[in-house]
Structure formats: C-alpha cells, structure tokens
C-alpha cells in the first residue's frame, strides 16, 4: 500500500470508512415509492442538526436556494457544510449561522460580484472550524465516496499551505514511486440538488453542466431533490439516457418552481443581479442585514413568499427573457393591415 510521507493538520469532519457507508446504503430503500412532499417537510425530516450538508450546483447556478432558505428558517444548527463552489448558498447559510464546521474550497465570494460582508464576518468570528481543500479535491472526495472507496489520489494541493490545512495525506505511488495527494472519501449525511425535472420517485434530470452533482448525488447518504417541475414516470422511461439521478438515491422530491432564484437556472431564468446586489448591500451593516433577513427569509412562510417580495412572475419573466437573450427593448415594428 501507499507509504505515507506527510499529512495535513486539518480536522476530518466525516468518517472515510467505506464499509460503514456500505452498511448505511444497504438499508436504503430501493422501491419505487412516491417521495413527493413539501420542502418544509423534507428539510424538517432529513436535515438534522449536526449533519454534514452538501449543496448542489455551482456558485449561484442551479443551486437549491429555496432549500437553503428553508434550512435557515427552520433554524437548523451545528451543520458541517461542504463549501464546494459555494457562493450564494454559503451566504444564506452563514446568515442563519446554520453551520459551525466547514470544508472549504470556495466560500464568502460571489465571483465577480464581490465578497459577502456578512459571510466574511461570520467566517472571521471564530465560530466556525475550517479545513482547507480545493474544488477538485472536494470533487475527488465525493467521487471516492460515489465509487465506494475510502480515498482517491490527485496531483493537486501538493507543496502548498492548502495541504497543511487540509486533512489530506501525502503518499508514494506503489507503481512509480511518485508522490500523490490522497483525499479521503466524503459521504455527506444529507445533500440537496436542484434539477429541471423529476418524477415522483426521484428519477431526475437537468440540463447543462453537471458540475459535481453526479458524484454528490451518489456520495450522499440522504438526498433531497428539488425540481422546477414534476414529470410523469413515462417521460423518464421514454428517454432513460437523460436520467442523471436514479430514484434509489433520493429520499424526497419537492416541486419548487424558480427554486434557484436569484441564481441562474439554465434555459429557465438568468440570475437576478439586482437582487443579489441587494443582499450584498444590506449586509454592510449588521442591523440593516437583520431587518433584510427578517423581511425576506424569516418573515415569509415559504419560498413563494420570497419570490413575491422579489417581484414575482413579472420579475421572473424578465429573467427568462434575459436567459434566452430576448431583447425586450427592441423597437416594435409597424403593423400594416
């Protein structure tokens, strides 16, 4: 086996033992049963305090924003968050102080939109324990878990402080003698992935890039799928090559139209940059941000309430046009009868 040359000092927040994961997956239901339920119920039942949480999508793209709001609204606490390509999701969960441990690949930032002032305050507060990784390192950890093995090697992270603050190990290849970074498998207790379409059993498909969601779905012990729309099982069976997540991975199916708002959902709606800016602006002063959260998250019963506050169908239609690059301001032609 590998000789271990060095190891990171970071904490390992989850158990990489493949047999323990197999024992869990052994008792998971395989039958085709109707798993449709309101998001409130799914989060209430499947997201337990202290769980390791994974969130699908990339940045604010095809991210299950509605589920993140619900986790905050239900005041879930002490979660371990998988900070993999996370932007608006981290921002929301940091606002709720929902997690106190975090595996980091990318946090706090919203790419070119700038940094979230509140997420930064929370991350610098000392209330959160961190371990450093990279996007591909966490992808490999999830891939190992999806494969059912306890680690995978990579040629990244080597030689850096990222390694020192990770929980990876440095090992020698038994074939070539070259050094590899070894990444422990990561089986999240619960993950949420937002998709375009799913049937009532949880067979699910999405359009566009997969990011790391195929691996995340297979690595997760429990999985909530939120979807733009429910489709009939016949639709799934008519085009099985389009199915990306099979039902036996899924514990709950929640129909949440516009569930990635104010993020981007490919083919459906573009990101609402005005509203995302409102988040960043409101965070500058803690008191102002509290009022913002009270209004937009705690003060609404569900995500539909949030959508209404943000302009409802009218705003969504503008974002639809933007996603499809339809120029609504193009001059109208004269009509000659």
């Amino acid at each position: 086996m590998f000789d271990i040359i060095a190891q990171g000092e970071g904490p390992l927040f989850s158990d990489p033992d493949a047999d323990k994961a197999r024992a869990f997956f052994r008792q998971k239901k395989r039958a085709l049963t109707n798993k449709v339920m309101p998001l409130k119920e799914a989060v209430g039942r499947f997201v337990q305090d202290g769980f390791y949480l994974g969130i699908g999508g990339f940045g604010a793209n095809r991210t299950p924003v509605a589920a993140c709001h619900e986790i905050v609204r239900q005041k879930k606490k002490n979660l371990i968050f998988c900070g993999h390509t996370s932007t608006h999701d981290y921002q929301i969960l940091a606002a709720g102080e929902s997690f106190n441990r975090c595996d980091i690949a990318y946090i706090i930032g919203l790419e070119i939109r700038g940094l979230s002032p509140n997420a930064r305050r929370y991350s610098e507060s000392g209330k959160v324990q961190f371990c450093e990784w990279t996007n591909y390192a966490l992808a490999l950890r999830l891939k190992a878990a999806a494969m059912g093995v306890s680690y995978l090697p990579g040629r990244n992270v080597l030689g850096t402080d990222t390694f020192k603050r990770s929980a990876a190990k440095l090992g020698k290849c038994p074939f070539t003698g070259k050094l590899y970074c070894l990444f422990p498998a990561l089986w999240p207790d619960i993950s949420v992935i937002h998709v375009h379409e799913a049937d009532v059993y949880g067979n699910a498909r999405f359009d566009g890039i997969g990011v790391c969601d195929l691996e995340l779905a297979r690595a997760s012990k429990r999985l909530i799928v939120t979807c733009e729309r429910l489709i009939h099982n016949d639709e799934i069976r008519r085009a099985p090559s389009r199915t990306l997540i099979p039902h036996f991975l899924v514990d709950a199916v929640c129909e949440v139209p516009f569930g990635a708002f104010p993020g981007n959902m490919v083919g459906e709606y573009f990101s609402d940059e005005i509203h995302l800016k409102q988040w960043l602006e409101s965070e500058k002063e803690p008191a102002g941000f509290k009022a913002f959260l009270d209004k937009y998250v705690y003060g609404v019963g569900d995500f539909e309430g949030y959508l209404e506050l943000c302009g409802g169908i009218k705003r969504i239609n503008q974002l639809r046009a933007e996603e499809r690059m339809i120029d609504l301001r193009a001059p109208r032609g004269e009509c000659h009868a």
Partner: protein
Amino acid sequence: MPDFNTMELMVVVASRILENGASVGVGTGAPLAASMLAQKINAPDLVIMFEAGGISPVMCRMPISVGDSRSYNKALMASGMCDIMESCQRGMVDYTFLGGAQIDMYGNLNSTVIGNWEKPKARLPGSGGANDFASFCWRILVITPQDPRRFVEKVSFITSPGYLDGPGAREKVGLPEGSGPHKVITNMAILGYDEETKRMRVESIHQGFDFSDVQNNCGFQLMKARQIVETPPPTAQELDLLRREVDPEGYIIGKG
C-alpha cells in the same frame, strides 16, 4: 493613443498571450474577460474550459459566473468538474488564467487569508479551482495590478503553487513535471520567470512606465529580462470590442 483605464489595459494585454488552437482553464474575474476578448480577436479556436464544466463556448455575453449558462453558450460540451480537471491533470490544457490576492517572486498565489490562518486579518474565498489549475496546467498566467501589497516577499498563505521555493521544487513535491508559472500581466508590465532561478523578471513594460515604476510597486527584488521591450498599447479595435461586446455591463473593466 486611445484612452483606457487600468483594468482595460490589463485585460487587453493579457488577451494577446493566448494563441489560437491552445487550451486554457479560465478562472473568475479579469481572466474571464481576457479569454473572451482573445476569442474575438487573435484566438477564435481557443479551447476555453471552465471548472464547472463548460467547454469551448461561443461567448456572446460575458459570464458573471464561470458556471452560469453564458459559460457554455453554444459550447461544444456541457461537462462537469471532474472531466475538466482531469483533462488538465492528463496534460491536455496548455494554460490556466488566474487572479489572486497576493503573489511572490516564485509565482505562488494566495487567495485564502491575509495574515495568520488561525486568526486572519481577512478571510478570502480560498482556492476554488485555482490550486487545481495551477497544479495541472502546463503554463500559469496571472492578471493582477502592480501593487506592493499584492507583490509580496512572502505570501500569507500559499493557496496555489507557483515554483514554490525555486528550481525543481514543483517536481520534488509531486506536481506534474514541466508545469509552472509563465507570465504575470499587470497594469505596468508583463513579467515572466528567469529560466535558471525561477524568479520573477520584467520582460515588457507598458507605455508611460519604466522599470523603477514596476520595482517600486513590488515588494521583492525583480529580475530583468536580457532585453526589456515596450508593450504595444491597446488598439482602438481591442478597446471597442472589450467595451461593446465583452463587458458592456462593466463587471470587470468598471473596476479600473
């Protein structure tokens, strides 16, 4: 000479480095604008890859995120993170194009913390895909303003590997052989690396600046290329495409 701001200058100069037919893993921020401009001028067949999964998009609007739908508009493939990073690890990606808060003389990059890791002065986003790209891609390109707070003797934290502590260091720790930092594009100069020492050197200086300007805005001793040339200034065409087609919303060039 047309008027331009700092960010426009950096993006234009950076865009010229990518040659047609090459492949590049592109990070968020200024690199996005530079690779999109390159695609419109000198490198229409540039194979642009985004860590979230987009391969070879025809970008008609600048992505706001390296994973939004514009990042795979009319793309050849909507793939995923493992496929992209493994293409890099396999040796099929020529360049990566990155930003970064701090850089040292060996091209090591910090985007994790300013100050001490345990109690940082500022917590930053972390690696994202930067460490992966910087480990795997053959040549690392960095865009960053020339500023002594960014060009430092010692970065607070090595997030992504440059030449680490000098010649041979990358290979010694197991990073792929023959990969490493290539150019740094700033608002004053194009910097490269000395072949022997792997230390940063000035290779080309933009109009209106001289070596001492670059050195005075750098926290470590810079080397000089045998011949330092003058960077051709941005042309009217480059600036026009950048402003009108690449970043009309000013997400990147509005910060100049």
